[in-house]
């Protein structure tokens, strides 16, 4: 499948759900296109070979460039050196509704900050600032 340069393959639709498929170059046609693929394809054909599409426009020769939003560690951007377990509103986005800690691949947090974050969340749980699990 990665060899075929047929039109359906170079669909690099800017999938709204920026999930971390690190698959990259190969024609992972099934991924990230579950819904939006059909809608994007006509636009591409109209654009012609010049690739006037999105940032990862179609290249000649079937080499696809996938455009997906690069996730950056939110803590690195803000130069956070210490994640305070007392600031619940800061931890909240990294916890599911049920109280689970979100994995790195969802949030884009770097490994170091994820480690600190996990610790902070566990501390907050311990003193009843965050739930272990929501009881209903």
């Amino acid at each position, binding site marked *: 499948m990665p060899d075929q340069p047929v039109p359906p393959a170079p669909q690099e639709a800017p999938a709204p759900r920026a999930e971390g498929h690190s698959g990259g170059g190969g024609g992972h046609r099934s991924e990230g296109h579950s819904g939006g693929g059909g809608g994007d394809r006509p636009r591409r054909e109209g654009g012609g070979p010049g690739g006037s599409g999105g940032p990862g426009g179609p290249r000649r020769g079937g080499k696809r460039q996938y455009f997906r939003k690069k996730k950056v560690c939110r803590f690195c951007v803000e*130069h956070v*050196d*210490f994640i305070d*377990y*007392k600031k619940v509103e800061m931890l909240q986005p990294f916890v599911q509704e049920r*109280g689970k800690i979100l994995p790195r691949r969802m949030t884009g947090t770097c490994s170091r900050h994820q480690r600190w974050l996990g610790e902070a969340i566990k*501390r907050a*749980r*311990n*003193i*009843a*600032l*965050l*739930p*272990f699990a929501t*009881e209903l």
Partner: protein
Amino acid sequence: MDERVYDLIFICRPATPEEEVNKIVATLEHSAGEHGGKIEKTERWGTRRLAYRVSKHREGFFVYMVVRSTQGDLIKELERRLKVSDAVIKYQTIRLDEELKRQQKLARHRERRAGRRPRKTPAAPPQQQVPATAAE
């Protein structure tokens, strides 16, 4: 032993009268003084919702303290007192000095790097980049 910094949070029953809380804080301060430590800061966060039920309460009165001590015995004593007092339903002590140290170290590193980057020559001593940049 080096001086250590701790975070101490305890939660009182929501129906605890104010003077009861004051009394607990006072006894903690007193025993901190006895053990050669001191309570640097006391914050009353007031009544907050608990993330889960603690001894059948859904709310609690949070008190947050920062304790400095050179003796670990102090923490033992403070926790014993909290355990004994009826009004307190939950408490947590966390040693923070190492993390604060790490935080300062990282901040210092970054500052140094930021100061060094514009000028490539290592002329300026790496310790004080603030005067170096001012001299430019």
